[in-house]
């Protein structure tokens, strides 16, 4: 039997449906768990925090949600070593909850995803993210190849990693999971859509059981999401099959086997 995965729904979450769908399509027993059912959360093997604007992004994206009672369970689960994946708003919440990079006490964030630069505006743009660590560093990425390149959509107003310079050094050395890259895998400033420090698109924690990624691989996760690719490039002719960004969820599923 596949592992039970909770996709958390905070007030203001908006990406739970497709997140549950891709998890199921790669074989996970996933379901959304609503804030009024927070008490059920201990029953799950792993947690996904999906995208959205939980609590309206008041103060800073993720800042209020980090104090939602649901996060008490997630923090406890993370400390037990259960897998936690945050995407976009979910990633922002994990940073604000101090779970990644996790270099200080819980709910004492040491880094944050802040307002995009230079525009300061929401941006919706197709991107690629490139694995910037040893895949085995993090169970969720362990099944990915070295330098794995994953297509995704950046769709956020606050995706620029910011931290004190010494914290950034720490992150660069130990916690940087994904960086923005071009489609051919090259990495440069032009590939960064939001001014993120270190070109950071994703972070992990010390144990590697918590992964926070800013762009959405689940929005480029089926063949029909990238119709311009030929049948050969898009993993067969079944237009409904998972592909592209699904690679990350397949690796997640593998880690839960």
């Amino acid at each position, binding site marked *: 039997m596949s592992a039970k995965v909770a996709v958390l*729904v905070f*007030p*203001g*979450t*908006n*990406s739970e*449906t*497709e997140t549950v*769908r*891709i998890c199921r399509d790669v074989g996970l027993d996933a379901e959304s768990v*609503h*804030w*009024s059912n927070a008490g059920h959360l201990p029953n799950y093997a792993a947690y996904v925090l999906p*995208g*959205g*604007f939980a*609590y*309206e992004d008041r103060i800073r994206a993720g800042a209020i949600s980090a104090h939602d009672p649901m996060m008490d369970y997630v923090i406890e689960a993370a400390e037990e070593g259960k897998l936690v994946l945050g995407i976009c708003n979910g990633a922002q919440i994990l940073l604000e909850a101090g779970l990644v990079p996790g270099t200080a006490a819980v709910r004492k964030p040491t880094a944050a995803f802040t307002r995009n630069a230079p*525009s300061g*505006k*929401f*941006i*919706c*743009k197709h991107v690629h993210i490139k694995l910037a660590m040893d895949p085995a560093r993090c169970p969720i990425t362990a099944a990915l190849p070295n330098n794995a390149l994953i297509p995704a*959509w950046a*769709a956020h*107003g606050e995706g620029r990693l910011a931290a004190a310079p010494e914290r950034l050094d720490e992150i660069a050395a130990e916690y940087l999971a994904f960086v923005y890259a071009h489609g051919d895998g090259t990495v440069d400033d032009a590939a960064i859509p939001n001014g993120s420090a270190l070109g950071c698109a994703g972070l992990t924690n010390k144990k590697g059981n918590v992964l926070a990624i800013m762009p*959405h691989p*689940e*929005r*480029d*996760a*089926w063949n*029909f*999401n990238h*119709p*311009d690719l030929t049948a050969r490039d898009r993993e067969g*002719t079944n*237009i*409904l099959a998972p592909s592209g960004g699904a690679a990350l969820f397949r690796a997640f599923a593998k880690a839960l086997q």
Partner: protein
Amino acid sequence: MALRPDELRRIAEGLGREPTTVELHAFDAQWSEHCSYKSSRHLLKQLPAKGPNVVLGPGEDAGILHLGEHNGERYGVVIAHESHNHPSQVVPFEGAATGVGGIVRDVLCMGAEVIALADCLRFGRVEDPNSHQRYVAQQVVDGIAAYGNAIGVPNIAGDVYFDEGFNDNCLVNVIALGLVKEDEIIHSRAPKNSAGWDIVLVGKATDASGFGGASFSSLTLEEENQEANKSAVQVPDPFLKNVIMRATYRVFEHLREKKITAGFKDLGAGGIMGCTAELCASGGYGAIIDLDDVNVAVENLPPEVIAVGETQERLCWILPGDVTLDVLRIYNEEFSLPEIARGARAVVIGAVQSDKRYVMRHGSEIVMDVPIDFLTGAISNEREVKTCHPEPRARARESKGARAAPTARDEGLREVMSRLDTCSREPLYKEYDAVVRGTTVIPRGHADAGVIAPVPGALFGIALSVAGNVAEAVRKVVAVGARPLGLTDCLNFGNPNNEEHYAQLAHAVSELAAEAKHFGLPFVSGNVSLYNESSSGTAIPSSPIIGCVGVIGDLRKVVTMGFKQPESGLYFIGPSGIGALLQAIGDELVLSASAVGPDGLLAAAAKMAFAANNDFGVKFTDAQPADEELAGWLIEAGDSSAFELLAGKKLRREGWRRVGVTTVADIEGRVDISADGSSWDLDDLHAAWSKPLAEIYA
């Protein structure tokens, strides 16, 4: 107040007494153009509304077209179209955001899941960085983005044009699509045998915002009243709406489990009064409403404000008593509305009555008691249609976007590409979330129409396009390989009491009707926005805005606009080639396609090259279409001989021709478009095309 003296007299005669304050405000809202379509209703009858694809035609909050079947279920696509022009001119961010909020409710209240948005914008000249119209153009986009992004509905189509005629009146039209199983549609009326059922108000606490909104949008904007007008604009709350939408999906589920037929409608113009009166009247009932039971944001609101104020984010259910408690629990406890926004909740405010009176109580007083059909019934202002000049036929088609523009033959292609009406829209739409829900197949910028795969596991897709006329909207949908299903319209015009403006409206409607009939397509929903003129009497350019929905039977065959390979034959197909083009796409003979508009063939080719990152250029061998051929498609054929064979069979000789071939970079890495001995570097064209709006939406 917008009621005219003769209307006031009719009210007093109809009631047999002078109306109360609440009644006066109720009639003012209900008889406004916004609610009653009094100047346009008889005109709109000309628009074709029937057809084999029509599941639900005009008359409720949204229309529904048959989309396809999957696993034995019939699916319909819900479409609604609305303007929020006046509010967006006065407070552009909030005005545009509430426009999105309103259209989403129109779709939601049909029992549908909201699956896509589109926006059609017309702004004044924005070159001057200090101009109000530039501020409007920026804030409107920010407002649409803020709302649509937060509720999690992808924005997949749209257009924007600039003209000094919109300096004092911008146009903000929004379209929303929904998905519904055809046997689960919920209607905007009190169901059969619903006498005594509860009237349940859901959403934001009623406040004084949006008081007088319906009649405000039925007046012209007077500069000196700007401050007063601001209070007629509602305050959007997309965060609350996000939760209300999800709670409502849960209520749909519950009602299906209980096999309950309920009535459901959103609160728009005329607030609680407008919504509950229309719900009950269209079911053949009356209603009694207790204004004291309405959840209010501030104490001591006058009854007329509670009754007709247009506070956003509210919906209304008609429910049998034994289900009411379940629904209240879903909204108030499971989705904890009162904790999401101060005072928000679901609450019983009245009951359906078998006598056909509309009654409102406030404190110990009856503040309104009128025959419901008199309140909601049509009042019509039929006017004699004056001949419109010049050339009404051209004029109706002429809304921005289809205006005869100089082509590359008259000015350099680079100049054409950098015109405000031609240049890249990406700086604007990149603020909109195009991919939330994970169903987006083609976002904006990759084809003429947006495409989504709405039903998990189903092979069919929905295409959505917008344009200033029917033919262009249809061509855009066909360009992705979709079969057009139906249309929606928003008629944006000046003051109908001005004979010339009224004549323009009348002629535009008959043109639209003729065009729709030509394509065999129904209009299933629409909206009318009149009085788009400033105090100086300057009206906007006549602007019908059309949305077209199409279906793609097999998503594997969807076609984008980016060139796919070098050495492909390029063909121009004339406007009568819909059937041939759809067959060629079905036979997988078309690698890329785009509608050719008034900018001409070269500009269409440049955009197709941009969509493929300038990997391929074009060598035109025949780029000189006759002017009447400017409408059609430019397509890239994978197998030229197979395509020519099909085209030869399906099309008249003058209906298509080979115009060129795709190319790759030359030895110096230069990719260009060449025609008639001239050539343009694509990188240079792309830079010129990208720049104008990037400066405005930096």
